[in-house]
């Protein structure tokens, strides 16, 4: 197998941070990710602690809900943007029940790399997660 091909194990070993104020949804994401074979999964249900987790954990991928009390997803997207170095590719997949066009546009404009409406298709979400991680890995390889 050629060296430059990405091994599934390499994707599955990446760190995923899920942020959602709804415990049930976090549990669903964790179940889905564990079922897919991911091992480094972190969940934050208190949005006020999300930024700290982001800084501390330096995840490879963030699954982010938009409508949350106190600190919402848009504010977090802005904070991520301010924190990350420009050349970094740290994908955020927005998962939200707010299906309006404005929300979609605003989230993507603030740096979200993908957008899936809730309720979502679990298989679709799993595929998008692995795609985004694959892109991140390719990006890292290019930079090195």
């Amino acid at each position: 197998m050629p060296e430059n091909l990405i091994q599934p194990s390499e994707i599955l070993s990446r760190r995923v941070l899920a942020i959602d104020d709804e415990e049930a949804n976090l549990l669903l994401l964790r179940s889905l990710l564990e079922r897919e074979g991911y091992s480094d999964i972190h969940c934050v249900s208190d949005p006020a602690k999300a930024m700290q987790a982001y800084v501390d954990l330096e995840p490879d991928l963030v699954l982010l809900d938009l409508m949350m009390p106190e600190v919402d997803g848009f504010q977090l997207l802005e904070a991520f943007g301010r924190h990350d170095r420009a050349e970094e590719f740290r994908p955020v997949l927005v998962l939200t029940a707010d299906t309006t066009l404005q929300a979609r546009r605003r989230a993507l404009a603030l740096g979200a790399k993908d957008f899936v409406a809730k309720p979502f298709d679990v298989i679709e979400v799993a595929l998008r997660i692995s795609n985004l991680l694959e892109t991140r890995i390719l990006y890292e390889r290019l930079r090195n």
Partner: protein
Amino acid sequence: MYNPTIRAPARFWANRSLAIKGLVVIALPLAVLLGSLLSLYLASNAEARAEDDVRRAFAIQRDTYQVHALLAEAAAGVRGYVLTGDNRFLAPFRKAQREVPSSMARLDEAIEDPIVRDHFEELRVLEAEKRTGLQQIVDVARVGNIAEANVEDALLANKLALDEVRVTIDDIQRREAVVLDERRTRVEEVRAGFLILTAVSALVGLLGSLSAVYLFSTGIVRRVRKLEGDAEALARGERLTEMPEEADEVGRLAQRLVRASALLHDREDDLRASEERFRLVIEKVRDYGIFALDPDGMVTSWNLGAERIKGWRAEDILGRHFSNFYPTETRDHLPEEMLERARENGSAEDEGWRIRKDGSRFWANVVITALRDEQGKLRGFAKVTRDMTERRRSEEALKEARKDAEAASRAKSEFLSRTSHELRTPLNAILGFGQLLEIDEDDFARNHREAIGQITKAGRHLLSLINDLLDIASIEAGSSDLTIETLDLGQLLEEAYSLGKPIVASANLNFELERAGGNIPVRGDARRVTQIILNLIGNAAKYNRDGTFVRLGCRFDGALVRVTVEDDGPGIAEAEAKRLFTPFDRLGQQDRAKIEGTGLGLALSKSLAESMDGGIGFEALAKGSRFWFSLARAAQPENSPLGRNTNDVTESSCPRT
């Protein structure tokens, strides 16, 4: 002159044209002058002739005396010769022989009077006898044998002849004297007549000139003067009432002046009447305060509307400054500003608080217009005031209502957004876990697998219910994300056809697309148009269980295009058709219980079509149903840069209804 009872000759004279009047005025004295000259000539001619006659009479007298003298001297000479025989005594006789015939000839020529002529004829005989007698005596004496007696007899006879001659000549002289007297008398008469004639001519000439002057005066000068007076009266704006009847130029001019005056007066009357009407109208206008200001801003006129709006009666406000209508906070500057603006720009408009006489306030719309005369001099201002208090109140109420409505709409949108989120969030967990369980269904017993299937199925149904409901609600709240643009319906139909194909195919029906390429520009939101088409196709496929096809097509309908979805299914009764587009009213629920659906599809399609300025409807076919919705036609698709004639293409590709 303009007396209607004017005499006929004067009328006749007045009616003559100016050319004829001029001719008469000049010709009359001229004719009188010529007559005088002619009479003068005739008189002098007669006098000359009379004097000629006198002269001739004198010549006759002289010649007769001369004949007598010559004969007398001849007789004396002959007597001397007879007595002496001296030849020298014969000289007078010879002179008489020589000169008497010529004198007689002159007399013959000069004598005209018949009496004198008779005497002259006698004289001619006697004179000839006399001279013959004398000749005989001379002849006898010359021979020398003159008997004394014979000579004495001859001489005596001669003397008698001479006496006769004298008598005749005396007759002639007497007669000529009479004639001369007669002629002298005639000369005197002619001279006297001439004097009289001259005097008469002078008089007639004077009269002629006077009458010419009179005619000129009556015919022209006086009337021109009158005309001038009329013109002045006209200039003063007085009315000319006398209509002159003269038919000459001056008369016609005068008539035209009178007509012009009548016309002017008619117009003036009209103007006055119109001004009066206008004044009455303005005075009676109740809804607008209309009044006039002088250049300093003093009120000069007042109408009913102004009285009604401002509470001032005309007699109380006339002559007072219009700043009385302004409340204290603007009274110092605004009235002057308004006048200044009106002076500069012609008019000034303002809306603001004014006060009534009783001090109460009203919201007024005011327009001040500067009034200038033809020279541009400021004459004053017209001010129109409208009481806008009621309107302002209602406008404010409207504004308030609009604000409330907008707030309500925002709240509704917010509520929808929240509801959407709140409903979807738990569904996410339900459907997500359900799906995960389904993926791992081999791990479960059969009855659990069925339970899992029911959970996901119910969850999905709930989701589509929520989606459709929120769609309808957001469209009705006006907060849906419609992007109306010019679309090519042809292309949309093609896309919907491919998207709908598997749905129709799964119902074992033929799917037909009833059009052949080309542009059909319409206004709409592409995603929503497709959503409606798919909804209609889905319905047709779902309910057409005993038919054979579903047909998608389009028809022109005036400024709209109808998209039609037909099927040859069981159809829908006319009475039920009305309920088709009502939410949750699924027709014949008991028969169709097995058919999946939220009962919101057509209601949602209706909301969507209407939000894109179209409509939706149903028509029963002989066999089956036709559902349609309409979209507004657009002139040209925005993405058609070549601007080709899409109309031709669409006409051929999309038949008319």
